[in-house]
């Protein structure tokens, strides 16, 4: 039985690491189709990663060990976060020991290291990017926590496993509070993953970039690890969203027979979310940086309204 649990956990970790670039490729492909371009294909992120991994990383003379360590820390924290989310089964050792608040903490840890490493060399773009990333982060984090509290209130626990079990048991009921929370979660996901209304993921346009400014000084396998961790982060965010708002198909029992169906459903959810993300990114223009607090303020408001509505309706 214990072997079984570990196998599930390891399979999920490997899946998250291996599939994350594919998700990125799918999103880029959808965006290309929406923009009437042919696109580079689903496997392009893998090609980019393998090329970067083969290249020699260049590190500045003034760089501290923190600068070199950060790509590995980012990659590890994101993999840990991926291991903690019940994406296909609730019977995961790591999902059981941690809850939604711990997950938010893991993301915060990664953000702090990314910002510190960007400021490490003292370049102008690095510090600017770090400041902007922290601005977005400190506005997005309370909104994320408020979003997580709504399903936590419904199911009576902050543990993602319990939330998934409770919500999946209730079946398809449209809670008004969950609709609010879902809308807020989409907004937080866009901001936290540096997607379009908040940050443009494709460009190195100096004056508007947030995320790209953080890893401007990285190259070679360091850059590959950062890009990979970005892909895993998006994968994990979509996984959390699927677990909270569409928990159907996540297996509860011990039998392995239901797992392939669960994985197929997860793939379908990821594909749908990726296509939706591409549509959002095509439809909306990038916000000015000083509009971002309004955007995330709205997300926070929606999440709090969800909590309040839940409190008022009592269900």
């Amino acid at each position, binding site marked *: 039985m214990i072997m079984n649990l570990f196998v599930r956990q390891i399979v999920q970790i490997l899946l998250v690491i291996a599939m994350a670039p594919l998700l990125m490729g799918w999103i880029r492909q959808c965006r290309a189709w929406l923009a009437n371009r042919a696109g580079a294909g689903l496997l392009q992120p893998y090609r980019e990663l393998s090329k970067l991994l083969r290249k020699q990383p260049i590190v500045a003379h003034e760089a501290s060990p923190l600068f070199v360590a950060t790509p590995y820390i980012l990659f590890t924290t994101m993999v840990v976060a991926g291991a903690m989310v019940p994406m296909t089964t609730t019977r995961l050792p790591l999902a059981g020991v941690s809850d939604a608040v711990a997950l938010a903490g893991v993301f915060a840890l990664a953000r702090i290291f990314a910002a510190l490493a960007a400021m490490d060399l003292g370049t102008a773009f690095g510090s600017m990017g770090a400041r902007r990333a922290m601005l977005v982060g400190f506005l997005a984090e309370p909104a994320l926590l408020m979003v997580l509290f709504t399903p936590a209130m419904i199911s009576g626990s902050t543990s993602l496993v319990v939330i998934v079990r409770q919500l999946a048991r209730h079946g398809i*009921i*449209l809670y*008004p*509070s969950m*609709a*609010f929370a879902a809308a807020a979660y989409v907004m937080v996901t866009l901001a936290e993953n540096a997607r379009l209304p908040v940050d443009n993921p494709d460009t190195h346009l100096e004056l508007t970039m947030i995320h790209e400014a953080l890893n401007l000084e990285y190259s070679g396998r360091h850059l590959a690890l950062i890009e990979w961790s970005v892909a895993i982060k998006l994968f994990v965010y979509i996984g959390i969203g699927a677990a909270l708002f569409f928990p159907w198909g996540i297996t509860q029992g011990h039998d392995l027979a239901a797992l392939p169906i669960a994985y197929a459903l997860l793939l379908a959810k990821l594909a749908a979310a990726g296509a939706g993300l591409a549509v959002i990114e095509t439809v909306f223009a990038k916000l000015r940086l000083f509009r971002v*607090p*309004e955007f995330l*303020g*709205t997300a926070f*408001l*929606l999440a*709090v*309204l969800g909590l*309040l*509505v839940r*409190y*008022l*309706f*009592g269900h």
Partner: protein
Amino acid sequence: MTSLAAPINLLAALFLLVAFAMLSQRRLANLISLYAWQGTILTFSIAMAAYADHSAHLYASALLTGVLKIVLVPILLRRLARRLDLQWDRESLVQIPTVMLIGLGLVIFAFNAALPIAGVGHIINHAIVGIALASILLSLLMMILRATALSQVIGFLALENSLIFVATSVTYGMPMVIEFGIALDVIVGVFILGVFFFHIREQFDSLDIARIERREE
């Protein structure tokens, strides 16, 4: 009747959401569209109450609300905005996050005020009362914070929507005569205010309330 509780609650939540969106909307044209959306939600909720109550006069009321608040009043307001050349005007609001936080405070106040109702009666849905009360307060806040006269009028119309919403969802409607009276009042009000705006602008060269007040001193 209980089977309709979930959709009515969902509509109530959407109603509150639209009230917040109106509060934070800068552009007048979008504000008018949001008003039309609010009318749509209101129409649906009245139709649902009619279905639950099997009453013909609520169906008539839903029809009346639909024609008036989804079609007629938004068209009038749009025409007014176009003729006053205000359509794409951006209003200088107080900081939007601040407005939202004040709005949240009002919502918490309204919800708390509505909670004791749950203890008194079983028939009245206290959640609907709370949400309608919150929407009324948000509309009032919008009338206070807006700078131009036209958006203040929209705030007033939103206030009227909230009142109708609570009336139909909680008591299943008022007598037909009163509903017709209110509908007539709204349409006459919009017409009169439209004429008024032209006079105000001729007199003061602006619809900005703050500027009009300064002139008078």
